[in-house]
């Protein structure tokens, strides 16, 4: 037993203290900062669920085994993953542990006088001396005061110091980063974000069931959804006739809010959302909804109305599905909507302009079991054709009817749909405040020089200076002081 190496007793408190020191050291903070940069790389190269769920789905279809493994490491949700969170939480703990003690230290240092003048000034980086001619002390005092140095006058010497803004700015910058993070966490706890696709003419009542997707923070209360009803009146899109790219989107809505007594008209554009209290409504995307009527063999209507189709390219070739579960037998349609139809030898029917100048609805008709009664949730934009069979293919102009065995479909026309985002982000103002303070702090810390100047008065005048962080410009400043003291200026 006695031959065992005896480690000094560290104890759990000592171990914790050691860990805390390691975590809050500057080196650890720097490594964590670099790690955070590296950790955010994969999310920009691999599709992410939050931004591009369709591409994630395609990845799973193309290589399911690899995707399963990647998903275990949260590679499709990098920015919400435990390992990414771990890095930034550690970084911010490290930052707080680093900055708070420094803030207290700096606060005391700011109120203290500069340390006394050292004995041997000639050891300083900058030093010069010359024979006194009298009156230097008064001149020096007024020069230091005019240049806003803090001075300690002692035994015929001046010890002067300037540039505390450097550390003040530096601390404010880091404290502001913490404020930004608090703002972000506040938003994710108390915020909400919902999406809804609305056809022109449709009404939106602000209740959870009206949304196509709705996410809230853990502490957001359902009842907090503000009361309002929104009607989509009109949507106009204009396109450049040379480049086909969109030039303007204007959405007109009517809003009924508060005590539901007044109707107000509003315009929503891409860069100007509608604000209702703390909720903002953004125009995100738009597309076409073909309007169809599906009839069964007896001529009674099985389905009627606009069906939103999803745009696939810049000319708004859009695809979608139409499901008529009430028809007997059930029918489903896989469709393409082409706003301005043209034929192309390579790829068949295409759209050559995003505006509906010569619209077509291309349909393939499927008959059988849509599988809606199986209880498995189904996508609004997909049909499971495994227990169906194709019974027809047709291209329709507005107003035309396609009759297939067991019924008919009429292409009545089209309307536009808009995708609106409803966002309540209560933390964003804290984040903005943090960002502004961060920039100001950064400017103060990068462009302030911290330096000390000493003057000893006697039969000879001695002047010495020291710049922290080897900041430039001290030599010129000293030369100025010297020439002032010598009476040259």
């Amino acid at each position: 037993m006695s031959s065992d190496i005896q480690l000094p007793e560290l104890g759990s408190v000592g171990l914790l203290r050691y860990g805390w020191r390691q975590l809050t050291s500057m080196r650890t903070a720097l490594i964590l900062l670099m790690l955070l940069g590296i950790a955010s790389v994969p999310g920009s190269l691999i599709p992410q669920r939050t931004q591009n769920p369709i591409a994630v789905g395609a990845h799973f279809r193309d290589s399911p085994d690899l995707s399963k493994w990647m998903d275990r490491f949260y590679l499709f949700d990098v920015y919400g993953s435990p390992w990414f969170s771990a890095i930034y939480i550690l970084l911010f703990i490290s930052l707080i542990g680093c900055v708070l003690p420094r803030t207290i230290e700096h606060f005391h240092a700011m109120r203290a006088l500069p340390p006394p003048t050292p004995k041997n000034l000639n050891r300083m980086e900058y030093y010069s001396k010359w024979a006194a001619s009298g009156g230097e002390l008064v001149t020096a005092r007024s020069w230091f005061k005019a240049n806003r140095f803090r001075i300690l006058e002692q035994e015929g010497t001046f010890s002067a110091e300037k540039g505390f803004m450097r550390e003040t700015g530096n601390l404010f910058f880091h404290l502001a980063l913490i404020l930004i993070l608090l703002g972000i966490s506040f938003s994710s706890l108390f915020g909400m974000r919902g999406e809804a696709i609305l056809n022109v003419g449709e009404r939106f009542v602000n209740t959870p069931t009206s949304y196509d997707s709705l996410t809230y923070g853990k502490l957001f209360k359902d009842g907090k959804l503000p009361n309002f009803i929104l009607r989509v009146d009109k949507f106009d899109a204009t396109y450049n006739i040379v480049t086909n790219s969109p030039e303007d989107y204007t959405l007109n809505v009517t809003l009924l809010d508060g005590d539901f007594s007044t109707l107000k008209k509003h315009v929503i554009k891409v860069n100007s959302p509608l604000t209702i209290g703390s909720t903002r409504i953004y125009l995100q995307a738009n597309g076409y909804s073909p309007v169809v009527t599906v009839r069964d063999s007896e001529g009674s209507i099985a389905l009627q109305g606009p069906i939103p189709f999803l745009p696939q390219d810049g000319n708004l070739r859009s695809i979608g599905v139409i499901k008529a579960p009430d028809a007997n037998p059930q029918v489903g349609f896989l469709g393409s909507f082409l706003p301005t139809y043209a034929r192309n030898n390579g790829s068949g029917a295409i759209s050559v302009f995003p505006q509906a100048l010569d619209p077509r609805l291309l349909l393939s008709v499927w008959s059988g079991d849509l599988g809606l009664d199986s209880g498995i949730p189904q996508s609004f934009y997909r049909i499971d054709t495994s227990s169906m069979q194709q019974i027809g293919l047709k291209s329709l102009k507005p107003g035309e009817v396609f009759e297939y065995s067991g019924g008919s479909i009429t292409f009545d026309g089209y309307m536009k749909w808009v995708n609106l985002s409803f966002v309540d982000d209560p933390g964003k103002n804290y984040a903005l405040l943090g960002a502004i303070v961060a920039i100001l702090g950064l400017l103060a810390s990068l462009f302030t020089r911290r330096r000390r100047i000493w003057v000893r008065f006697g039969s000879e005048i001695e002047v010495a200076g020291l710049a922290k962080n080897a900041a430039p410009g001290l030599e010129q400043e000293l030369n100025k002081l010297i020439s002032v003291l010598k009476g040259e200026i």
Partner: protein
Amino acid sequence: MSRNWAYLSNYLVYSSMAVYTISFFAHAIETAWAVRIPNASSSQTFDYKRTEKVARIATAMMALGFLLLFAGVIARGISAGRVPWGNMYEFSITGALAFSGAYLAALRKYDVRWLGLIVSIAVLLTLGTAVTLLYVPSAPLVPALKSTWLVIHVSAAIISGGVFLLANAIAAAYLYLDSMESKGDRTPWAKRLPTLEYLDQLSYRLVAFVFPLWTFAVIAGAIWAESAWGRYWGWDPKETWAFITWVAYAAYLHARVTVGWRGRRAAWLCLFAGSTFLFNYVYVNVWGTGKHTYSGL
């Protein structure tokens, strides 16, 4: 009317390329001509008086190229009826303008004429790529770009980019000269370049000067994103890489100021940080996905 302005812009951009080419050759001649070998037995000497005229021509042509390109960028903006930052062609010509502008501004304060050769060739390559590969006809902006923040966010980003790349060129020059010196002496033409210490300081100062502006560019982008997309930060690839660039330069500044990195290590870190900026510009714009790729290029 707007088409004429677009043509004028193209002429001005092409003319500026011609002038930058003259500047490039003048810089090359200046570098080569200063070397003198009086006779076979004596070693090389340098005579910068002899090349002073060429050097002046080189700088004057750089300034003229800058003015022509400036006019070209302005005319492009007039033709489209907006600020000329709507697609990658326009970003590239403005970026080239910012880069040569950063050089000319630095030249007023520091003796960086030796950089002219690198700057003129970089500007020519950028403009060449812009007019051949990236050119798109002048057109109004897509709705998402119609915002005052376009002016604020993009101008801050372009200026930061120009200065970052200048700092990168200097850091690269540092590494090149450093390896040359560690093998022996500098080759004749390199002898006129400043000391390693000077280059080291200069690239640091440029980064320290422009880092707050880059921070501002990112924040302005976040404010704009809030009003256009309903979130100020969404880890879009462009945003992610802007953040990575910010982290890399923040690490560079920390490494210099608090850890005391100098010289070779600092230069490598500076180059690394600059390459994240270039990656963001080239890769994310051309091959990436996300909300910053709607510009058609």
